[in-house]
């Protein structure tokens, strides 16, 4: 249901041979692949919100791999990045990792090493996207609450008993119970614990 678009491996490398060989390798294992010869070309193609991962050459003329990473972070892209580095690029790789890259691999590499990293990245991406989708769903449910139901929810999540909530909101205890039941229903919560987890999940990322 969520995976309407198949995850794609995006390759950005200025060296035509390296780019093309990666395209063939990924084709040989049946992974959808798209290749780009510069960071700018990739940005222009607007692929950064697609499911998949990015295999990125760290050293390129014009926009370097690190610069593309910064731009993608600015766009709030969650696309995992695997950097390809040459000899002696360790300091750059460290910088890339600090900026959130999932991994790096040094050229030349064993195909299985790269494929393993790609699979891990795709899994991570799928996980992130699942989580993101879930959060969006929780947000939608929260938006469906009336202001009064929202007030009751906040106090329930704060751990207050119905009697206390009734006192705080100047409502009858019965009315609070009805609101509370509506909240549980609208939020599709199985239990109080589930409800609390959902709300915290959204609040944590909305700050």
């Amino acid at each position: 249901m969520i995976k309407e678009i198949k995850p794609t491996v995006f390759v950005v490398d200025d060296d035509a041979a390296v780019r093309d060989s990666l395209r063939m390798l990924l084709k040989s294992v049946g992974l959808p692949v798209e290749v780009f010869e510069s960071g700018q070309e990739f940005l222009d193609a607007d692929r950064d919100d697609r499911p998949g991962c990015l295999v990125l050459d760290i050293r390129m003329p014009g926009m370097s791999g690190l610069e593309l990473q910064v731009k993608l972070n600015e766009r709030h892209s969650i696309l995992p990045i695997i950097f390809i580095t040459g000899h002696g690029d360790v300091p750059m790789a460290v910088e890339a990792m600090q900026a959130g890259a999932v991994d790096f691999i040094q050229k030349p590499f064993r195909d299985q090493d790269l494929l393993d990293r790609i699979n891990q990245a795709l899994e991570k991406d799928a996980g992130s996207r699942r989580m993101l989708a879930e959060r969006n769903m929780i947000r939608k449910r929260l938006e469906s609450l009336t202001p009064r139901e929202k007030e009751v929810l906040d106090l329930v999540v704060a751990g207050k008993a119905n009697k206390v909530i009734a006192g705080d909101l100047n409502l009858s205890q019965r009315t609070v119970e009805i609101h509370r039941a509506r909240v549980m229903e609208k939020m599709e919560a199985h239990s109080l614990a589930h409800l609390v987890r959902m709300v915290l999940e959204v609040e944590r990322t909305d700050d």
Partner: protein
Amino acid sequence: MHDDNHPSTATGARGAAVPHSNEAELEFKALLDAAVDAIIVIDHRGHIEQFSLSSERIFGYSAAEVIGQNVDVLMPKPYQAEHNAYMDRYQATGEARIIGIGREVKARRKDGSVFSCELAVGKVQGVVPPRYVGFIRDITLRKLADERLRRSESELRLAQQLANLGNYVEHIDRSEPDYHSPQLCRILGLDATDLTFSLRDLLTRLAHPADREKLNEAFADLASPAGAFDCEYRVVLGDGTTRYLHHIAQVTRDAHGTALKHIGTVHDVTDRRQSEDEARQLQERLTHFSRLSTMGEMAAGLAHEINQPLSAIATYAQACQRFVRSPTRDDADVLEALEQISVQALRAGEVIRRLRNFVKNREVKREPVDCNRLLDDLRTLAETDARLHNVRLRIDAAAGLPTVYADPIQLQQVVLNLVRNAIDAMSEMPESRREVVLSTVIRAEGEIEIIVADRGSGLAPEATEHLFNPFFTTKSGGTGLGLAISRSIVRAHGGRLWHTPNEVSGARFHFTLPASPASKGE
């Protein structure tokens, strides 16, 4: 006629022998005065009777001063006494020591100075008592000339010895003996007594095998109508040592154009050649070393440049394996990957080939070089470094550039060195500014110019002063040889290397090279 051997008595008064005829006397006087040699007539006692005009000139006495005096006033000390003894002996015995013989003696002028002269004495026939005529030739100048000649000969010998220069004259028709100077013999390791040899035969035998042909050609030139010989060659002497000779010779001909003799000099230039050889080898080693160190500085870029095709090859090969194992494989994919593998292997090989060409320790070899093509060839090497430092490399080639006669690798070395400096000069600059422009320009004076321009911060005034000094460097890992060697390479090619500030910012390094004569008109 009077008998010479008859001792005569001292009876004749002075002037007794004077011709009686006044006219004859005048003629005799004129004769005496016309002579170049001093002519003096004395009587049997040695008293001067006639003293010619030239005598006056040579001795500084007037005739009036000396006539009647003993002739010994004209002689310096030891000769005076000897002369009187001769006179006495001759009078007594008739034994002639000088008459009719002539010899070299010393004479004394009025001012007391002594000079060398040639003296001939004759006896006047038919008078009693006998009288004698002396002919005296001042040979001071001739003696001086002789002395000078002797000295200049010995100086020449010394000069030849010091310069290690020998000379010779060989007569083609054998009309005169050949001359080979002692120094020539020494140079050729010959015994000075063994001077009868033909230089050509000897040299042909001694010549270094590699130079024999050259020597034969030179001798052929000598035999040609131009008749000139100028050749430098090596000889291997009897003791096994090798000498470098610079040999110049010429033919002299008579009015009919017949060759008469060969005149020549042989200069032993071994010491000079050897030190030149050593200097050249040192320079070449240094040039090579500098090339290696340039490559060392570029190692990271080169490693990257070779690593790219290698990693592409590895990835293609691995893709191939997967394609082949796949049940749904498409041979077209396999073929494509294999084709790319070979292309990339050649690409890596090409980088290595250029690298090897560049760093190889090789003989300097000049040939016609198209500088635009040279820059293009250089691109592979230069770009590895440029890419590593995120520097763009642009080539602005002038159309119709004449070729230059040069060593292509050394020229690449100069350009690469300038490009490396340009790249280093921009390491602190924002990426948008990092561009090196290589341009070629045709100059009006039959020269081409190559310019390497960067957009760095330019040269500090204190750096420009020492820029071309060996071991001067502004880089932490630099040898400081790059520019010094680049300049010496450019100079050796007849060009100049200098720098100017770039427009806005940075530096431009220029060098010129003379266009090959054949392509100047293009």
